[in-house]
């Protein structure tokens, strides 16, 4: 992470107790767990909430920065900077892969700030927050990317026993 991310986190970002936020996210999952028994339904509803979160973050804060990614490859540093600005930590590893009309970007972190120290009995990816935010923001740019669709999911989560938390964005080009 460059100096820009470090300075933004230290001097620009207004902060809140991370445990307060992590337990809020846990409460949301537990609330949905009372409404739905199938983890796939819980995942779908969580995604809805976090995509709307992405819309609010974009409208309130990111639009004003006027520094959107200029190419698909830019989604690597852009979201690394964004993640650092929102959590204080950059990703450990980001992979960019093109396979014909499919582009995959994988963001990986070991000491995930969303689920650090948490326990939830419901088996759904806990840190879906980032995936929902990225998916909503990049869905607004389908034309810019000449893409048919963009999805982002949390494909590994330490809360589910994986060794890292991992998000995979899939951009399907036209």
């Amino acid at each position, binding site marked *: 992470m460059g100096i820009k991310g470090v300075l933004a986190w230290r001097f620009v970002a207004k902060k809140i107790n991370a*445990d*307060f*936020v992590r337990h809020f996210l846990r409460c949301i999952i537990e609330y949905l767990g009372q409404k739905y028994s199938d983890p796939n339904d819980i995942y779908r509803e969580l995604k809805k909430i976090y995509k*709307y979160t992405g819309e609010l973050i974009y409208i309130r804060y990111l639009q004003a920065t006027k520094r959107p990614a200029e190419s698909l490859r830019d989604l690597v540093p852009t979201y690394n900077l964004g993640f650092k600005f929102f*959590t204080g930590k950059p990703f450990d590893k980001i992979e960019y892969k093109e396979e014909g009309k499919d582009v995959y970007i994988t963001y990986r972190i070991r000491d995930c700030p969303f689920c650090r120290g948490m326990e939830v009995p419901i088996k759904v990816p806990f840190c879906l927050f980032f995936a929902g935010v990225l998916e909503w923001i990049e869905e607004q740019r389908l034309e810019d990317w000449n893409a048919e669709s963009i999805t982002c999911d949390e494909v590994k989560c330490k809360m589910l026993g994986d060794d890292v938390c991992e998000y995979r964005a899939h951009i399907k080009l036209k």
Partner: protein
Amino acid sequence: MSWRKVDKINVYGYTAALQAFVTYLMGSGLAAEEVVSTLKEFGRKIADALYDEFMSHVKVAPHTVTDLERMLNDFLNFIVGQIFDDISSERSDQRIVVRCRLRECKLCLDLESPSPDIPMCTMFAGAVERICEKIAKNLGMSRAKCDEVKCRAAGGDACEFVLELTP
């Protein structure tokens, strides 16, 4: 207790998720009072999770109203690194009432509540209620109730919390 030592995250992510969740609840058909009671319950659960860590910073549970006011400031500091602009208390044999006001509240920073009946810092009120329930006996009381009675995000000029302890 030092705010500098608290593990932190950007408040904008929290406030956006809070607004998204409240909007989701309303879209699911919940009335404003049901949304408020859901947020209050979340706050109480959060307090249960954070109680031991917070009280280890406070060291001694409050035994006087002055101690209680100090603890409420410590708790706000523990959550967002702020202290209240005004705190006032009244004590009688039957109850203790504490009013806390905060003009530039980070818990609802830049938020606009979807309903004037939904104070957006209600989770914090729920957390205060649960913590004070746990320490009430030190003050000769047994029950605690805390509500956010004004919220900047819901049109108030400040965020205001009223805590009431009763026997």
